[in-house]
């Protein structure tokens, strides 16, 4: 074992990883799926959604921000943690207006796919039915805040990958929403449909116009296999 490599356990499985990795990065490399929503490997971690919460030596932490360490004991795929994750996903559903049956993101939506993977069939909490704004002003793009889970991926992608800073957060807590850096909606920003920010939305919130339903039902990403399968395949190979 070299100096910068550590060994630890996730759900009893021994994992070796570079000491500069986070738990979620190490797990991905080892073919162990930790559910996540705001985390995307191409972006710096945000630590917003808490779906990737694991227990390290019995203490809950974000797998996307917590560094690996020698000998730590990580709990991931446990009934307790999956129940907490299911509750988080459920809250995201009832806090927004997510109408999967007609949503163009259905079948490729990570929120929907997580709900299926975690066994959330129907929310038990009351729907809040909030009034949310739809920004359709851009000729090629729309931002539907009804479907936004405020994961911040677009914020980070615009800053770190596109170097544009088109998106930001506004308000706090349950009133938090994505804002754009103009007073006249998306049309007055320098966002283009080729930006990296347009590739990162986990739901159907930030979407390129006139591309809907091009993939038939049955051929969409999560029609074929559950979310996380692409990571778990590494373990098999």
């Amino acid at each position, binding site marked *: 074992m070299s100096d910068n490599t550590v060994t630890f356990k996730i759900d009893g499985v021994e994992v070796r990883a570079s000491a500069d990795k986070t738990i979620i990065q190490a797990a991905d490399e080892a073919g162990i799926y930790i559910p996540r929503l705001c985390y995307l490997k191409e972006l710096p971690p945000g630590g917003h959604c808490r779906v990737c919460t694991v227990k390290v030596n019995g203490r809950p932490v974000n797998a996307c921000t917590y560094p690996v360490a020698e000998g730590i004991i990580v709990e991931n795929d446990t009934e307790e943690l999956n129940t907490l994750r299911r509750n988080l996903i459920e809250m995201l559903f009832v806090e927004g207006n997510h109408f999967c*049956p*007609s949503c*163009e993101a259905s079948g490729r939506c990570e929120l929907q796919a997580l709900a299926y993977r975690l066994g959330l069939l129907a929310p038990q909490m009351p729907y809040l039915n909030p009034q949310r704004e*739809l920004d*359709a*002003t851009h000729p090629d793009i*729309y931002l539907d805040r009804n479907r936004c889970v405020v994961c911040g991926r677009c914020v980070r992608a615009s800053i770190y990958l596109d170097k544009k800073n088109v998106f930001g957060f506004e308000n706090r807590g349950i009133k938090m929403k994505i804002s754009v850096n103009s007073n006249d909606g998306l049309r007055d920003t320098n966002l283009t449909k080729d930006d990296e920010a347009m590739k990162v939305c986990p739901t159907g919130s930030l979407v390129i*116009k*006139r591309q*809907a*339903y*091009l*993939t*038939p*039902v*049955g*051929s969409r990403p999560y029609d074929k296999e559950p979310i996380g399968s692409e990571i778990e395949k590494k373990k098999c190979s």
Partner: protein
Amino acid sequence: MSAKSEKKIVINPVTRIEGHAKVTILLDDKGKVKHARLHVIEFRGFERFVQGRFYWEAPTIVQRLCGICPVSHHLCAAKATDVIVGAKKLTPTAEKMRRLMHYGQTLQSHALHFFHLCSPDLLFGFDAPVEQRNVIGVIKADPETAKKAVLLRKYGQEVIRFTAGKRIHGTGAIPGGINKNLSTEERDILAKDIDIILQWCIEALELCKKVVKSKLDFFLKFGAFDSNHLSIVREDGCLDLYDGLLRAKTADGKIICDKVKPEDYLDYIAEEVRPWSYMKFPFIRSLGKEKGWYRVGPLSRINNCDFIDTPIAEKERQELMSLTKGKPINASMAYHWARMIELVHSAEKIKELLSDPELQGTELITQGKRQKRGVAWIEAPRGTLFHHYEINDNDQIVLANLIVSTTNNNEPMNKVVEVLARDYLEGKSEKEITEGLLNHIEVGIRAYDPCLSCATHALGQMPLHVQLYDHNGALLDEAIR
């Protein structure tokens, strides 16, 4: 006559129809029918809540107003959005895939209606014991026919799955085309069974004809009344369920309007609102509210077309039309016969399409000059369906108007209730108005195969309610389901 001496009969809900409604019949002090109404007690909402959504979402959102004929709404909305994206002519693969989807739906919907909803009346009698007069009774009496009914519907649903992606509420049709072709594997699965499916459709038609011919005079007079007839027909006058131009005829076959294009529909059709129903009353403008109402659906389509382009259905059309020497048939119960001709036609069309290699083509979408208004129609199983959308510069829908098949049949369904109330309830005492007699009213409504959730674009679950009042305004009888 004082209001106190009137009586009111209520049937609530009307059963074995799609959706929820009630019937009220008001009798005066002499027991005469003062008025008879079919009330649709569902709330409409879709035209409002698609406002603000994008036009490409319309085919997927609006189809959710129905679980029986969503394909009609899906395709009609897609046709309207074809206009918006400037797709004047679809690729052959796209048009044929959509047609296949539509014939699959017509087949399953007509089979569902005939076997599951109306065959208990036709096979056991309108006043047969209620415990027998239902689909379970049909299964017990003739399990082989019941099995064929289920498999017919299943086949239609499979056609829909292979063309739309799902059996119910698929996403196949998109603005300007379709998102998939028919793979050779899918084609072979459907082709394997189409001959037996066609045979079963012919058997269903023969069964229907046998029942009707056994009491032809009775069926031709039951709930009969004159009306105009409206449908789309192909430009050459052929029956066409997917596309065509609008034609309307009078009860005796005179043309009221012909070759009307979808974009001009408002010049010909208007809708009246009456306070006692959530369903509007459409009429032909040139004839006015009183005389302009019309029938739609299988009977009107058979009455209006000049011919059918599939051999078995055309032969059957000629036999049906010979009953009135080629003039329109105005008998409500003839809907069943016409519907079964269309069932056969749909199977013939599916067979024809499955041997067409263009279904395996790869050119799926076409576009042209963008428009801000899109109007389209289609012949849904229950009749002519209109979809009209207008959009703003941001691609959002700002106006949606749906005139749904069952809405077009609103006045005829009210008329059939009135005619049957006069024929069967007038002058009867309270004791004489049995459940079986009230079912005669429902039989008349069922002939039109109404889909009331479609017609009102309903929200939620709402029941159907029939009430009978006496001339004193006292409730004599009611049924709620």
